[in-house]
Every structure is written in C-alpha cells, then in structure tokens.
C-alpha cells in the first residue's frame, strides 16, 4: 500500500512547528509592538501572515496556537481513550448484565449531540483553563470510543486462543489484558487518530464562541474569533487560521484512514 506521504509529512511539519514554536516564531505571539502603526498589516516579508488588530504577528500566533489546539486535542483523546477502552473492554469481555448496563449508559450519552453537551458543560464551568477543556472534551468523547472497543473485544474474545488461554487456567482479567486488548490496540489507535480529527474543529469552535482557553493564550479558534471583526478589512486574519485547522484535520483524517485500510483484515494476507 502506498503510504500517504504528503499527509504524514504535512502532519509532521505541523506537529514539529508546534513543538519548536519558540525557535521558529519571529515574534512573541502576545506582544503588541505598536497597536496604532502596526495593526492589521497585510502579509509581508516581516509578517508572512500579516498582523492583527492589536499589531500581533499572526504567523507566530498560529504556530503557538497549534501548541494549544493540538495538545488539547491530543490529551482529550487520551482521556477519552482511557475511559472508553476500560468501559468497552469490560462490557465486551464480561458480556451479560454488565455489558447491557454499560452500553445503555453509552447509548444515553450518545443520544445527546456532543457539541451540545460540550457547550452546556463549558457554559456551566464558565471560562475554562486548558485542563478544563481537555476534561470536558475527553468526557464527551469516550462513549463513541467504548463502542468501537467493545465490538473489537467481542470479536477477539470469540477466537480460539482466548478460549485456549482460559482452558489453561489464566484468570479473566489477565486474559483480557494480556491476550485480548493487545489484539484490539491497532483498531483503537485508528479510532483515536480519527478522534483527534473530530476534536480539533470542536475545540476551535468552542474557542471561536469564546468558550475556549482564556484570551492571551493563542488557539486556532481564538485567532479566528479575534479576526472575525476585522474580516472585511483583513482577509489574512481568517484565511490563515482556517487553513491551519482545515489542513491539519485533513492530514489527520488521511493518515487515520490509511491506517484503517492497512488494518482491514480483508486486505491482510491470511495468517
């Protein structure tokens, strides 16, 4: 299979840029050097993505914003992954009553649109820290994850080698942890990758609505919010942060899809 080289490279560049933000950015993302003379400058050699209404360098803000947005997305998916895997694994492996109760809970959680749930939680907590966002996005993300894990666990648990492990006296929890979950992990990682692609726009949306990380910290949605008022005067304030979001989400999706394809048993050589 041809690796999605362009997507991997793009993603790597974005992630590395976020990690190396202090090194590669020409300006402090929060600095307002001259709020009168330097405001809303169009892209130039000095400011490749222009400046905003407070004379801040948009390129620096987007790179630093990537730090915020990507780490919130990554960490919240990690939270969702931990909860979702535990719940899904227990439900799928135990079956019976535990499965029925847990999955009805998941059904209930999934019956409320995630955006609505996130908005309600965000509104309830007021201005939130990055950690708060991670928790809110993580707590609303695990039900979907748990369904995927449960389905995979049930499939693997029906395999002969799991029965064989039980026949040799290996206790249930150990069978689950040592023999079932490792076989499920690849699919879970694919789900997590695609989960990141869902969380990035969600986080950007929250920030755009003013419910994201508080003001001086740049995030992609926050930059969009700042630029929105200036949209008729300064196109670069909308185009560049939007592009950052769109390009990242597409790259993550492509990588995730390719991962999924490479794991599809129908495309795998027989064992």
């Amino acid at each position, binding site marked *: 299979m041809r690796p999605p080289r362009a997507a991997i490279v793009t993603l790597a560049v974005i992630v590395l840029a976020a990690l190396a933000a202090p090194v590669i950015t020409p300006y402090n993302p929060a600095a307002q050097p001259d709020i009168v003379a330097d405001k809303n400058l169009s892209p130039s050699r000095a400011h490749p993505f222009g400046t905003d209404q407070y004379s801040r360098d948009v390129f620096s803000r987007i790179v630093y914003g990537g730090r915020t947005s990507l780490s919130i997305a990554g960490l919240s998916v990690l939270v969702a992954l931990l909860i979702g895997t535990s719940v899904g694994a227990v439900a799928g492996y135990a079956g019976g009553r535990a499965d029925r109760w847990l999955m009805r809970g998941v059904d209930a959680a999934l019956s409320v649109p995630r955006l609505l749930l996130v908005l309600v939680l965000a509104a309830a907590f007021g201005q939130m820290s990055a950690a708060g966002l991670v928790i809110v996005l993580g707590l609303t993300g695990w039900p979907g994850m748990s369904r995927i894990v449960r389905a995979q666990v049930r499939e693997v648990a029906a395999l002969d080698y799991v029965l*064989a492990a039980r*026949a040799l006296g*290996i*206790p249930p929890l150990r069978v689950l942890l040592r*023999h079932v979950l490792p076989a499920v992990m690849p699919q879970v990682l694919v789900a997590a990758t695609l989960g990141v692609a869902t969380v990035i726009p969600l986080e950007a949306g929250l920030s755009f609505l003013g419910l994201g990380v508080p003001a001086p910290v740049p995030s992609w949605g926050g930059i969009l919010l700042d630029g929105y008022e200036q949209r008729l005067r300064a196109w670069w304030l909308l185009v560049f942060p939007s592009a950052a979001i769109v390009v990242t989400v597409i790259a993550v999706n492509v990588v995730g899809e390719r991962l999924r394809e490479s794991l599809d048993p129908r495309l795998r050589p027989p064992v």
Partner: protein
Amino acid sequence: MNAVLDVRNLDVTYAGGHRAVHDVSFAMAPGEMVGLVGESGSGKSTLGLAVMRLLGTRARIAISSRVSLEGRELLDLDEREMCAVRGRLMSMVFQEPAAALNPVMRVGDQIAEVVRLHGERSRGAALERAIAMMERAGVPQPGRRAFAYPHELSGGLRQRVMIAMALVLQPAVIIADEPTSALDVTVQAQILELLLQLQRESGTAVLLITHDLGIVAEACSRALVMRAGALVEAAPVDQLFRAPAHPYTAELLRAVPRIRKSA
C-alpha cells in the same frame, strides 16, 4: 474403578432450548486414554467444554449434573477456584493449533505464562520449564523455537507447542478436542504418537474427542459413542469394533471406508 474424572448425568442446554448434551455419564481411570466419537453436532465438543466449565453464558448445565475430578466436585466451584483447576489439574488441546495460540506472543512465553500463573515465581525458571516441556513434546531446538511466534512454526510444531502448554503442569486429565484433524496425515500420526507417549510417561488420562474411528482404534483403550447429545455406547475398543452393541455404532463403523483391526 478409582476414577480420576467422573461425570454423572451431565446435561447441557443452550439458550433457545437446544439440549446439546443429554444425561451423559462416564468415568475415566487415571492414565487411561478414552475416545469420544460421534458425528459433527453430536455434542462431543460441548461435552468437553462443559467438563472444563468453559461454556459461555448461553449454555446451562443442569443442576442435577455432577462432574468430579479427583474427588472434587467441579460444578460447585466458583470461577476463581475453577481457574486454579484449569491448566493444573485438567487442561485442553484444541483442533486448530494456528488459532489456539496467541499470534502476538512468543510460544515460549505462552507456555511460561501458564507455569508462572500456577506458582512459579521466577521468570527465567518458568521459561526453562517451558523449554524443557517443548523438548519433551518433540520440538526440535526448543531453546531457539521458544522465541518464535506461532506463525513462524509449522502446523505440526504448533500442535506440539499446544500439547506442551497443556501438559506442562502435569494435569491429571487432558481433553483433546480433535487434536489431529487440522493436520496432514503424516503429521497426524506423529502427534498421536506424541500424545500416547506423554500419556504413558506422565500418567495423564486423555479424553480424545474425534470423529476418526481409525484414531480411536489405534490409540484408545475404550470408546464412548455419542449421538444427538446422548451417549449411545461405551465399550472397550476391541469389543466395540468386533461387536458394536448399538445400531448407530455399527452404522458409524460402516461409514469408515476401510476398517483396520485394532491391535
């Protein structure tokens, strides 16, 4: 007879009402090899899984059933106690060695895991015991093969590993569910020979589930014949082949293209 495994009135019903095993009683003496034959769907495998208490939640064992292993009543044990029985006192060999081994674990580690679960503290000692058992099970170069993954081994070797895994703790009883059916004919004979040899060496009683009467004639002292969930005949092998008491047994024997005289 001082039975090592004594099954009384075993009755298994699947959800939906299908009665897969119907009032089956039999006993096995220590070190005995007993064949359990019958056509597909006759309840042989369900019987084996029921004795191991490995049926899922969709199958129910009747409360009047009794399964005692070395005098201990297995149906009264909870899952934790059952885990201590499985592998150590009674274990199982499956039909498809390719499917019955964890594909992402080295085979030596899989055997060592069983050793460690049942008491061995040291990782190294467990692996040594695993390698020694692989050698007894006829795996050439066991010290090297222990670090192989199942897909790197041939079907016959995988089954030897599976047998090593089942026998490493010297259980009193092994239930071998079609242990040779998925293998080439030549390998079948070797695996059967191995089972017989290990059974003689360690005095393990083997319940050999198969649909192959040739194997029963070669390896077993007694045979149980199952049909539609019920035990229709139980007899020493030579008597069974010479003068089948039940018409179904006679029919089974006639279904074999060539009947060999048993030794």
